[in-house]
Every structure is written in C-alpha cells, then in structure tokens.
C-alpha cells in the first residue's frame, strides 16, 4: 500500500500535447505510472507516446476508465479543465499549474469536494509512490521505495529532503506535494490522516513553510490523533513580515504565520523539527 497513487490509478494528462504535457507523460510512464491517455481540446485522435488524445474529459473517461488526472494546462484554462474533470467523475485531480487565481481554486476545490473527489495542488509537484507510480513532475531519480511518508508545500526543497532520505538508506512510501498556494485542495491534516491509516508508512515527514496556519493545525491534529512518529522542517525562519517569498502562500502577515510560531506548535506536539533539511533522515534514525 501507499497513499493516493498505487497500482490502480489510471491517469489522464490534461494538456498532454503541450511541451510540458509530452515531457512529463514520458517521465510518468518511465516511473511505472499507468497513463491511459490525455486531453487537449481540438487535438482528439492524435497520440502522445502511444497514448490516445481526446477532445473532452468525458470522452477520455468513457474510453479509458481513467480515475485520475494530471493537470498541466496554462492557468487561464485551469478552472475550466478541472471542472471538466470533476464533471467527468475523476477521483483524484493533481493540479500542477501555478499562478491560478485563488478564487478559481476555491471554485474547483469546492466542486470536487462536494462530489467526494480529491484535489492535490494547485502549484504543486504532484504525488509519487516509488515502485508504483507518480502523478506530476517530481524527478525520478531521487526516490527509493520505503516506509517514510513525506508531505510538503514546496518542490525542490522536498526533492532535497527526499533525496537525503534515500541516500541515507531509508525510502518513501509516498511523497505528496500539497502546493505553495494559499488555498490548496489537500491539507497537511488530510495527508497525515491518510499516512496514519497506511500500513506501509511507519514515519512521516512534514515540510512546511511560512504563511497561513496549516502547520499549527497539523501539529494540533498530530497531538490528538496520530500515533506514528512525525518529523518536520519549516522554511522561512529568516523571512521578514509582509513579503511574499515566491510562493503566493508564503507570507507572514503581521505576527501571523511566521516560522517561530509554527516550530513552537510542532515541538509542543512532540514533533522534532530539523534545522537543516538533510538532518531529516538522522532525526528519523534517532541519530540527532
């Protein structure tokens, strides 16, 4: 087992004929993902890496039985694309696209949640379960199948931590990139709850950053509901208030959402917080 992505995901790529779509379709296939096709309006009937391209999500789901989608469309089309996937009955939407207006995100996340569907992202690297598959743009060579569940708001910083876990001889059950936007379809709490239920996952790593209160909420949840050990890293300890640090969600507003309060909340919940990203595997092994 793993969470979100396993052997039973049948994946469509929305925006499959674009440069990113083609590239990452191949990368997902290489990782063992069951990509069954893709959608680009007006390009139905073509093939990408031997996979059929459809004009609409409805046609694509009817023809392939897909249950998951990887959204790689430009942001202007993101709301429409996700709503099409919601209406086509997709279970898991992984939205990679960045800079989607937050009102659009609230609209499609609500539509998906109302139908019992899950959204990962937007502005995220996706989900990878080593040995099973990935939906998204995470690099292939950093993973190793194992027992650590990783959940994060960032991309490359997560790769660094995942890579250090692999280099240390540990591995990952699943790595979930939640996305760097203020509003995301899946929260730390959602992912942590799934990892707690997953028999393969033995430890969890939470990679947070400044802005919002998702880490504080996760800390309270861990204290109440989680038995497996949780470790954390928080980015943005040196970030000044009022500045958006790259991710739209990474902003300290007044005294709210700063790293110190997140670290304090995590530590109060018994979660060890690493000072250096690469300290995570040593924390897991009890070497620090």
């Amino acid at each position, binding site marked *: 087992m793993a969470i979100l992505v396993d052997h039973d995901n049948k994946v469509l790529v929305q925006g499959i004929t674009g440069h990113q779509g083609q590239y990452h379709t191949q990368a997902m296939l290489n990782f063992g993902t069951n990509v069954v096709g893709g959608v680009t309006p007006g390009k139905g009937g073509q093939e990408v890496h031997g996979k059929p391209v459809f004009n609409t999500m409805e046609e694509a789901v009817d023809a392939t039985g897909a249950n998951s989608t990887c959204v790689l469309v430009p942001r202007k089309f993101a709301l429409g694309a996700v709503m099409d996937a919601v209406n086509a009955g997709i279970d898991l939407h992984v939205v990679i696209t960045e800079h989607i207006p937050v009102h659009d995100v609230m609209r499609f996340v609500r539509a998906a949640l109302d139908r019992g569907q899950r959204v990962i992202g937007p502005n995220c690297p996706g989900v990878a379960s080593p040995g099973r598959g990935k939906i998204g743009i995470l690099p292939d060579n950093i993973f190793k199948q194992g027992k650590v569940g990783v959940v994060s*708001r960032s*991309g*490359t910083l997560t790769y660094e931590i995942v890579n250090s876990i692999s280099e240390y001889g540990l591995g990952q059950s699943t790595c979930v990139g939640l996305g760097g936007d203020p509003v995301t379809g899946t929260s730390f709490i959602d992912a942590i709850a799934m990892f707690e239920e997953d028999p393969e996952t033995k430890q969890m790593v939470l990679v947070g*950053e400044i802005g919002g209160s*998702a880490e504080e909420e996760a800390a309270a949840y861990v204290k109440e509901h989680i038995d497996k050990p949780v470790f954390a890293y928080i980015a943005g300890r040196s970030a000044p208030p009022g500045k958006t*640090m*790259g991710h739209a969600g990474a902003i300290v507003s007044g005294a709210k959402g700063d790293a110190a309060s997140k670290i304090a909340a995590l530590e109060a919940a018994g979660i060890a917080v690493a000072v250096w990203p690469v300290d995570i595997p040593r924390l897991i092994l009890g070497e620090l």
Partner: protein
Amino acid sequence: MNVMEYSAKEIFQQYGIPTPEGYMVTSPEEIQEVLFPVVVKAQVQTGGRGKAGGIKFAATTEEAKQVAGEILGMDIKGHTVRKILIERRLNVDKELYLGFVVDRSARKVRCLASAEGGMDIESVPKDKLFSYPFHLEDFLTTEAITKMMDILGLCGIHNDPMVALTERLYKLFTESDATLVEINPLVITHEGELIAADAKLVIDNDALWRHTELPPVEDEYTPLEQRARADGIAFVQLDGDIGVIANGAGLTMATLDALRSVGGDGGVFLDLGGTDDPEQVKKAFRLMKDAKPRVILLHIFGGITKCDTVAIGIRDVLAEECIPAPVVARIKGRNEDLARQILKDAGLIAAKSLQEAAQLATEAEGGAC
C-alpha cells in the same frame, strides 16, 4: 497587490459604497478651499500610518497646507509619502468594522464584522466579533445577517443600508478577485449615514491579468522588484548583503535560513523557478548584479534537468556578465560532480553541502571578475 486607499475608494464608489468627499494631491499647493474641516491622510503601502503621524486634521486651508507639507515626504516604515488624500471630516457617531477575506484553511471566504471599528480586528474579543465563513459562490444567510446586525448593535433605520452595503462590498470582492477587502472604520455619522472612512483592498496577484480596469501597482515594490515582476522572476530585496539565487521558493527560503544559521544575512531572495532557459538565467543574474550583493550564493537542486547542463548554462551567463561579487555555488542532483568541476573551472566557489555553501558565502571576499 495592495490598492492605495484613494484608488480603493474610487472603486468603492463605483460599487455604490459611500466614501467621504475628497481628493488626492501630491503637493500642498493643490489643496482647495473646500470640504473643511478636513482630514489629511498619507497614502502609503503600510499600516500604522496614524501612529506614525500620517493622519492629521485641519480646520482651514492654511492649516491643511501646513499639515500636508509635513506629511508629504515623510518616511513611514521605509515608505516615502508622495500622495495625500484630503477628505471632509465626518461627524462620527459610531465606528464599525466590516471585511471579507480569503480563509485559507477553510477554503472559503470569511466575513468579519465588529462594532469596535477603528481598532485592529485581531484584537477584538471573540464574543464581539462576527466571523462567518461561506463558499465563494454563496453569501451570508438570513440568519447570519441577523446575527451580524446583532453584534453590530444595528437595528431599524440602519438595517437596510447595512445589508445593501455588505452585498455591494462582497460584489466588489468577487468581481475584482480580491483576497481582502476591509472597511475600518465604517462610520455611522450623526446624520445617520453609513460611510467607508477607510478602504483596504488587496487583489490576488495571480488574477491581475484579467483586471486591466484596476489601477497600476504603486510603491509596493522596489524598482528592482518591479523589473523582476516584469521578467516573471520571484525576487524580494531584504536587509542583508548575500544574494541568494535558488530554484524553487521553498529551497530559496531554506537557503536564506541556512545563511542565518551560520551568522550570514540574506540580501536578496531570487527564485529561478523550474527554468533552465538561458535567457531567464541571464535575466536573473542581471537582476542580482544590480542588487549589488557582497556575495552571491547559488543553490540548485537539479531534479529533472541534469546538473552539468545547468552548470554550463550558468558558466556561459557568467562569462558574458561581469559579476563583481564572489559566487558560491551548491548544486545537487544528477551529475553533480561534473557540475561542480565546471563551476570551479569557471572561477566559482563550489560547495558540496548547503551548510558548507552557507559558511563559504558568509566568509567569501573578492569578486568573480
């Protein structure tokens, strides 16, 4: 994007939300002999202007000109006052608070209201705060509105105007892709009118492309930050002397934190993003060069792209652009050994770990050219 008060009030008026009569000036000479007594308000992109002396009253034209002269050019938390708003002073009976904000955790909009206007909404006690989350497509229910009126202590003649104003403010919120709209204080005058004495409006930066009707960004960013925005690069100027270029926002923040951990101080946050486009790398280094850091710390995690490819790109850019600061590089991922050698040969200081890179950057002296 933070919309300045005088611009936000123009938008309020378009939505039928009353604001005090007034006009914006950039010099005392523009002040007219009307609307007295007036309030003179500094227009800056930061809070706390009242405490900083940026809001003053004046009873006569002469007094207004004198006060305006004092406020114009004033520095408020690093922002120079270049514009002031002159407004008719209201006969205040009551001060309320009303706002809508994106609630990140709930993935909803939250309506906030309080009878204690004029103070920071964070410091209003819970039992005196109306706080109601709802889906973007919805609005306050009848019961929620009743509860809001109760908390605001409004009834009778104020009921209908307050409901209408709340609806208009929410229409503005949704139609302008706002992440925050706030009236603090919302004044009830002796004459019984509801007037937005202040106006705060923050528009989602990611939605600006579909709002050409909005005023341009003012004074929120430094000139270099403005240039970076035009180039599509996430770039923030900070107080320190070490410029950080990394790929990915989280990694860039973590690199700045690493500097702090070893006693260094980051001066620039520059997120290259997922690009290995040589033109974009060139733009990034030009921005960094113009920010004049003492040292540059380059931190790349090569995920999809091979590290040696990235290193060659950086070497070529540095060969073209003379950077008068030492460059410390930490590059991790596929073919990192080869990448390190390429960077060393190009005169960069190559480090293996982030910790080592942070230490080398903090100690580095001299220049790359």
